[in-house]
């Protein structure tokens, strides 16, 4: 008759447990919760177990609607009008009193100026003779290290032409396909080129989901221009 203590259902574990703990639900910031993700993973898990608990699903649904309501409330809530600053005490400020002017003979003479000049020229000569050796490697050397990450203009253009070829007849091309069989460094380079092209407005990068596939599309307006130019 040994009975294993019944395991807690998975939805009472994080991250789903929030959907079943009403007290906690009101304490979190509603916009910190991604309901779509919570619910889809909840259903996936439930499907995996092969046991559909309608009561739990119902509670999850109710909690989700509560979160949605809380979220919409924060949007709709009109901003508090800024507090009106306390009226400053209207205090009469007396007019500016002019200080009487007192001319002063200053003690600085041409000799002082010359002495200062001597001093500064001495320092300048010393500085010239003691040239501090550079701590950083020369510029060219510095950049060589990063050469693999620098993108040349030609490279960008070549890649764009290839991309156009690959996209012929297709709306989009998944990034995963583009980098298939490439090593890490090559992948990084390709991604950088894509970012350059996207920033130039020549392509669009679309990612529907967080960490999901990145789809590449030619910018429709530009591809139209390209079409006219090439025909």
């Amino acid at each position, binding site marked *: 008759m040994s009975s294993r203590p019944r395991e807690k259902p998975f939805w009472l574990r994080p991250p789903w447990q929030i959907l079943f703990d009403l007290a906690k639900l009101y304490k979190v910031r509603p916009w910190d919760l991604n309901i779509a993700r919570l619910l889809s993973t909840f259903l996936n898990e439930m499907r995996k177990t092969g046991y559909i608990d309608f009561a739990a699903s119902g509670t999850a649904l109710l909690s989700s609607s509560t979160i949605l309501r809380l979220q919409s409330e924060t949007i709709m809530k009109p901003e508090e009008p800024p507090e009106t600053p306390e009226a400053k005490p209207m*205090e009469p*400020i*007396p007019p500016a*009193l002019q*200080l*009487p002017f007192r001319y002063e003979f200053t003690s600085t003479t041409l000799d002082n100026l010359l002495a200062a000049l001597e001093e500064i020229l001495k320092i300048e000569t010393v500085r010239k003779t003691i040239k501090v050796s550079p701590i950083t490697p020369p510029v060219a050397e510095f950049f060589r290290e990063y050469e693999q990450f620098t993108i040349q203009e030609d490279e960008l253009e070549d890649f764009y032409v290839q991309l156009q070829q690959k996209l012929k007849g297709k709306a989009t091309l998944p990034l995963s396909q583009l980098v298939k069989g490439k090593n890490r460094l090559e992948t990084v380079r390709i991604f950088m080129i894509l970012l350059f092209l996207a920033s130039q407005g020549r392509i669009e990068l679309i990612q529907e989901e967080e960490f999901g596939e990145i789809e590449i599309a030619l910018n429709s307006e530009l591809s139209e221009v390209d079409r006219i130019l090439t025909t």
Partner: protein
Amino acid sequence: MTESSQLKELDKHPEKLLLEPTGEAEELQAKKRLIEAALYVAGYPLELKTLCSVAQIYSKRKVQELARSLAEEYKARNGCLEILELEDGRFVMQLKTEYVPRVRRLSIKPLLTEGPLRTLSYIAYKQPVPQAKVIDVRGPQAYEHIHRLQEMGLIGREKFGKSHLLRTTSVFSDYFGLSKELKLMKKQLEAMFTQAEKEATKRREEKTPASQG
């Protein structure tokens, strides 16, 4: 009185009779000029003993007499300069206040601009006044003003609980020839403010003569 002190002087230093055969009046005139030169060059109040040493006069009283007569001379001239005798007996030469706004831009030494001067007026009038109050009324830039005024020795700042109290210094009183007694000084200030306002209005009117024609 001048003559009696001259005689006293000669009594003390009979050698003068031999050494300086020029007329006594001329001699005094020359000493007066030295005092004037000292006041012009210094640009800060000079003590009687300093004036004594410059004019090579041994008696403070004599020097005081000469300096006073110089101040009178300046007053009678009705020029733009004045010589003031301060409460503590020092003398100073300065440009009369009303001329300052018209010529300040020519000074090689940077002068206080309108902002810090207003803060100074406020402190002088309200003193002793908490620093926080001054900042409140004059805005955050008053921190800089207070620093500058303190640097120039025009105001003092003393700890008062967690805050600071500000008040004007004797240097301030010296500039305006004001009493060091607070109540009296405030009364004197009030009169000056009225005068300052009048002059400011006049300057404004002068600047826009076309609008009046």
